[in-house]
């Protein structure tokens, strides 16, 4: 908690003994109290922002970064293999999927990197479990309830003399997806904000709602005569509502006023990135953004659908980077993709691919050292066998946390993981 708590907020402290975390409680404080008690906003000159891009469903790595020169690849993919003449060459062995021209250009300019063959030991092929493993940065056989971003936020907020992480009433992390990403879950509640295209509150008088949500002795009793105990879900709903009442006015104003300096293609994914760029440009103290592109679970007839997805990804990311660059923000933002797993090297009988293991991911920023990191997967495989990963995804996280977010990565990840070379 902030050491300079004024006595006017002390009455709220009682809540801390009734099961509501202090962090949650601090957000119930009426805005005028918060504003009057916080130090002036910290300078944001050297802030570092991370944008996570989820490719939901399991992206087919072999048809994203294509080992076109390997005869084994063509043998594995009789109908799905991409031809040498079509791929966008990276070197004598690898090329990008033909619909990724904008990212190919970024790669050549040193603003994008590929981390090859990323996965983890004892891979799980369940969408949910593997997504959970990625989002909680756990080992395949351990179950963690907090996410890696949540633990990063925990860490940044911990310590008696640490200032509140993001400026008050500004979210610590913002996601543009229907559900809150598991990676955002911390051991204490963090102020996260869900941004959607379309949903907007109507104009109305919210004073009464603010009063109901912020009353100090809130409680619901199961029956008459009982104590009004506040359940965890009740506290959570109150905290979220108060946060959103304050945040939404501000964020909507920013998005309405956003003037991008690049042309974004249509579609929800690119528009989400457009809004993220606007929020970053407005100087929000939010450090992590999460954007999701779904549909990668290509079990059947994947050729066209995968090409469309990679085009959306590529055009969206390139417009985003161009926008950031034009606004002089590209040195503050690192963007990184991830997907719960890659797909089976052997195509299936439905011209699709089944759940697999390792896959490449992309990192994008102003200065990415070298286009290719890690090693490409070996395709010397038994029939229907899976790829064996060569880079652990937690090494990617460790590198990002350590060299980009400048935070003790090993503490957040619970173990030491090798750092990679894409960030100096």
């Amino acid at each position: 908690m902030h050491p300079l708590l004024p006595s006017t907020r002390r009455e709220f402290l009682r809540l801390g003994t009734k099961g509501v975390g202090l962090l949650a409680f601090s957000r119930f404080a009426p805005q005028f109290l918060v504003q009057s008690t916080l130090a002036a906003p910290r300078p944001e000159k050297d802030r570092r922002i991370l944008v996570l891009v989820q490719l939901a469903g399991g992206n087919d790595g072999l048809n994203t970064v294509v080992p076109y020169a390997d005869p084994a690849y063509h043998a594995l993919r009789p109908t799905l293999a991409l031809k040498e003449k079509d791929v966008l060459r990276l070197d004598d062995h690898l090329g990008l999927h033909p619909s990724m021209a904008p990212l190919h250009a970024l790669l050549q300019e040193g603003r994008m990197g590929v981390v090859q063959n990323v996965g983890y030991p004892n891979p799980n092929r369940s969408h949910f479990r593997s997504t959970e493993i990625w989002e909680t940065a756990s080992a395949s056989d351990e179950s963690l309830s907090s996410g890696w971003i949540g633990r990063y936020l925990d860490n940044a907020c911990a310590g008696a003399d640490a200032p509140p992480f993001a400026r008050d009433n500004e979210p610590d992390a913002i996601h543009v997806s229907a559900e809150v990403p598991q990676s955002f879950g911390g051991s204490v509640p963090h102020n996260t904000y869900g941004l959607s295209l379309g949903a907007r509150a109507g104009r109305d008088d919210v004073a009464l709602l603010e009063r109901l949500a912020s009353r100090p002795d809130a409680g619901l009793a199961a029956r008459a005569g009982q104590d009004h105990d506040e359940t965890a879900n009740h506290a959570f709903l109150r905290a979220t509502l108060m946060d959103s009442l304050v945040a939404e006015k501000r964020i909507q104003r920013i998005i309405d006023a956003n003037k991008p300096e690049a042309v974004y293609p249509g579609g929800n994914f690119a528009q989400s990135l457009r809004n993220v760029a606007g929020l970053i440009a407005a100087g929000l103290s939010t450090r992590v953004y999460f954007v999701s592109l779904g549909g990668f679970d290509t079990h059947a007839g994947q050729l066209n659908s995968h090409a469309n997805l990679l085009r959306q990804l590529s055009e969206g990311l390139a417009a985003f980077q161009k926008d950031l660059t034009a606004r002089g923000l590209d040195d503050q933002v690192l963007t990184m993709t991830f997907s719960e797993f890659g797909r089976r090297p052997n195509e299936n009988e439905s011209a699709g691919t089944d759940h697999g293991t390792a896959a490449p991911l992309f990192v994008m920023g102003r200065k990415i050292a070298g286009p290719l990191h890690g090693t490409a997967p070996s395709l010397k495989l038994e029939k229907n066998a899976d790829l064996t990963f060569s880079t652990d995804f937690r090494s990617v996280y460790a590198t990002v946390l350590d060299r980009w977010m400048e935070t003790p990565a090993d503490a957040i990840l619970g173990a030491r993981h090798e750092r990679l070379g894409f960030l100096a």
Partner: protein
Amino acid sequence: MPTPSLDPREAWKPLPAAAWNSDLARHLLRRAGWAARPDEVARAVNEGLPATLERIFPAQPPPLERPVYLVKATERVQELQRLKRSAPTVEDRRAFDREENTLEAAAMAEFSFKWLQTAADPARSAYEKWLFFLTDVYVVSFEKVRRAELIFRHWDVIRQNSLGPAPELAKAVSRSPAMIDYLDLNRSSRRAPNENFARELFELFALGEGNYTEDDIKQAARAFTGYRHNREGFRFSTRDHDAGEKTVFGQNGSFVGDDVIDLAYARPAAATFLPREMARFYLSDQTLPHEFFAPLGEEWRASGFNLRDLCRRFFGSVAFYHPDFRASYIKSPVHYYLGLVQDLGLDVIPLERTTLQPIRQMGQQLFRPPNVRGWVGGRLWVNSSTLAARRQLAQTLCSPFDEDRLNADERLEIEVARDAGRRRFTVDADRIRAFTALGPRGIADRLCDFFLPGRVDDGYRAALVDYLEAAPDAAAFEDRARRAAITVLQSPEYQLC
């Protein structure tokens, strides 16, 4: 959350008749259904718990007829497919595709309205919510299936088997055309078995993760080869079926799919899997330990996995009414919507813009779950933008119905609904005016006691009374009465049940 005070051996015993009262009846009606209307509460208290459960989970599943528009759209789609085959140009084919997509989406919306209207009927609520739960286990998505008719049939297959033995339900679902498409059984053949269905059968339908091996999946997938469908329905393709010997859960045999389902239900994990899913859907978003369900699972297995029996045991148990499980569960968007419709005594507005779009903005799209696991729910429903959408919906349903904004098509839909006797789309001025007669304290009590789960603290009521009393004149008081109702429905407490 799993309370140490609640011994698993005691938890699943029937609630003593003497304990049954209006607080518990409200809890049952809100959790098993969507809302606790005073007349329904009184009826449940009079009948007693066992008779109430007999009534709300009837011996025979209540039917739901195929919407007329769905029949028409499906006929036209079949015609379009014939036309497409002889279409002269790519452009023509694309035009047919577009019409097809429009028809299917409209048919899906039609079914959405029909189901919502049916589920909003207090006499049907508990059953239709149970069906909704089962479709959230046996997930298919219109996003992939693309045929409203197949989605309708899938729900109907589940409906027909919703109160009988669970293995029969699983077998029927494995033959559901929508499932055959959704989990790629239609692509699965002797030479190339597709593992998708077999995996989800074990992981998400019957046993749960960790209760099978990768090899069990590979072998089970072979047993489900040859499952196809045509216009009439399920078709078994002997040519595509792998009739060879398989080893599943250590048993050998030339199994077909039904055998694998029986083998799965013979596993210990089957007895507690569905009860745990029920607990997640009805009781608590906290993961309760497996052991907690063991006694219930044993009884359920002994009943031949009878689903109606499971409902009566679950909703009639000591555990279901334990104080820890009350006024603490976050309503899903569909629950929030249908709860409002019932609490406010409204009809479903048959317009996508006013009904389906808000539900989607709150984070849930009927017939389009995010993935094969269905909706995870709990706190994942809640973030700033979904709360904003809930607030907007409460506001809309408590404000005069704005017919001026309707386009011609929408007006027609509204006329049709009115002709069918559905005309209470939002809370109109007359009802608010009647409400103002209660005075500030009366209004505050009515709002808290009828709408909110459990009892709120005095501070909540006091805030409402202060607000209402501050109205300078009668017109302002009417406005504040409406505003107070909206605010209660937007407040954190109304999001819980």
